[in-house]
């Protein structure tokens, strides 16, 4: 099923005389309604976990037992249009394998060397649990865990174990029942550890910042900033300093520079320089000319011009796709 979106022409931006005016001040509010903004943010918020979840496996958790055997549990997203799914088991000495699909439906499996063939039949998520004895080796008193993981994973080390070497930077670490639990990145990882009765797990209890908390803070700050920006813009839109943009009714009643400054005593020094230049330039200047004259970046000058427009000192017109900045003619009347 295909649908086509026909382009539509809106006449709203055209004035009665057919001249196109572009008002930058209200453009955001005109084009973006608060509801749209909120809707888009909700969609994005909903998409974040989906984006993250399309890595496979979604969750991978390992528990190392004191004898070096390792319990693996993983949650994996799979194509629901598959009848079978082949999964690498990281080794061949497997015990206690259980695979469940959607709604904890027990799935049939066949182990072939390092792989398991799972009859998924439409499951979109599978949970697999098994014990493996191939991930940890021991030499003298030193235990070495090795894994080439396709995704980030958590690793719970045995009690009284102390890490004495590792090849990767951990993403996080916390202590659970006197056991170190590391979150590690995907790729090859080797961790050496020893069992020690003499040295207790003296690592200070880490501040276990919950990642959801970080999510919430970042999301919250973004939402507050955006809502704030929208409110400010809307407030300004409701109380506009009425600016009459009609170039056809142009009159030669520009105030002299001293009067402008008297009417607007709070203008910034750099803005006064701009006004002086425009005044001396016959009451108008292109924004690009102002940039060249004052050697300012585009955004800085744009902000200055917008500031003066808000103050009611100037008005902006579009001329050949450029911004023409003109001193207001009826400033005194409005004041």
């Amino acid at each position: 099923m295909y649908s086509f979106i026909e382009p539509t022409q809106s006449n709203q931006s055209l004035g009665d005389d057919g001249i196109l005016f572009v008002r930058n001040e209200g453009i955001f509010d005109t084009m973006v309604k608060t509801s749209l903004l909120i809707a888009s943010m909700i969609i994005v918020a909903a998409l974040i976990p989906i984006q993250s979840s399309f890595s496979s496996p979604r969750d991978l958790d390992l528990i190392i037992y004191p004898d070096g055997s390792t319990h693996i549990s993983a949650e994996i997203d799979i194509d629901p249009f598959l009848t079978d799914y082949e999964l690498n088991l990281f080794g061949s000495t497997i015990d206690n394998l259980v695979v469940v699909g959607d709604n904890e439906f027990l799935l049939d499996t066949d182990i072939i060397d390092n792989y398991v063939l799972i009859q998924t039949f439409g499951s979109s998520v599978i949970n697999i649990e098994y014990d493996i004895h191939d991930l940890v080796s021991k030499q003298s008193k030193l235990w070495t865990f090795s894994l080439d993981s396709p995704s980030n994973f958590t690793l719970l080390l045995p009690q009284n174990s102390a890490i004495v070497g590792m090849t990767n930077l951990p993403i996080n670490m916390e202590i659970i029942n006197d056991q170190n639990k590391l979150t590690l990145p995907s790729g090859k990882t080797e961790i050496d550890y020893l069992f020690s009765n003499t040295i207790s797990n003296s690592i200070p209890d880490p501040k276990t910042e919950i990642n959801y908390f970080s999510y919430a803070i970042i999301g919250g700050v973004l939402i507050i900033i955006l809502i704030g920006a929208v409110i400010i813009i809307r407030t300004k839109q409701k109380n506009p300093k009425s600016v009459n943009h009609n170039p056809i009714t142009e009159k030669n009643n520009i105030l002299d520079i001293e009067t402008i400054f008297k009417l607007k005593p709070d203008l910034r020094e750099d803005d006064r320089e701009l006004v002086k230049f425009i005044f001396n330039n016959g009451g108008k200047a292109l924004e690009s000319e102002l940039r060249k004259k004052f050697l300012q970046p585009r955004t800085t000058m744009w902000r200055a011009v917008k500031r003066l427009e808000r103050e009611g000192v100037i008005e902006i017109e579009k001329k050949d796709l450029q911004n023409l900045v003109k001193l207001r003619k009826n400033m005194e009347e409005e004041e």
Partner: protein
Amino acid sequence: MKKLAVFAIIVLIFGTVSPSLVDRAYGQNDPSILLRIAVQADKQIVNQLDRVYGDQIPNNLQILYDKGHRAVYSLDESLPDDIEKAKKDFLVAMNSFMQISRIISQSSEKAVVVTVSDKSNRDSTSEIDRLEKYVKTLEKISKKYNTNVESDFIKIYDLIQELRIQINDEYGAYDDVINEIKIILNSIKNDIRESAIKHKSDFIKRFFDRLLNQIDKLLTHAQDNDVDQIQIDKAHALILEIRELLSKNQINDAKVVYVELKELMKNIGYSIQIT
């Protein structure tokens, strides 16, 4: 239209920016963990060196230790301002300590590489813990299927308790109890399988039904787009064959035909997959 465009742009911008913000926040989650791990490793290495060599630490190990210890010191200095340097220091320190501990292990008189996968090297407590975890998983699944195996699970948990007591009993019948547990577990698994057959059959039929309906629609579309009629007819024939096999409960045969159908669909340019 304008609104739609701006809406799409906002979604795109935030969709692109927000996951990267989250990732960064996650990656930098409490960088002081690096220092904690490194300090702990440093202490362990000092202990090992003391225990094995006393005051006569070999020169190569002393050099390695100094390198690692300096890196730990530098790591401490780097935090919290210079995260990148801290990461490098961490890796240098942990690499040095890893080399030291491996050299010590290799040079040890009792340096024997133990294969953890060898059953004789497994620890009884670990084995019981793993077994108990497995039993709990099966118990959870059995509840889903309404199997009457509750009493079996009670029996298993009692035996597991018995096992834990017998670990330290030289004359205990540890292996016998383990075997008894395994027999009951096999019986439970069979019960679950039997109970699951009906569920499974319905489940698989629903799956194929959904799939074949979708393929039917794709074939209609293919017909509209002038795809070779012979191929389309063949696909329809395969669909009929699958449906017939399913009605006879011949699931595995249906699977084989489905693979053929999938290949055919791919050849005519209609892959069956999530896009």
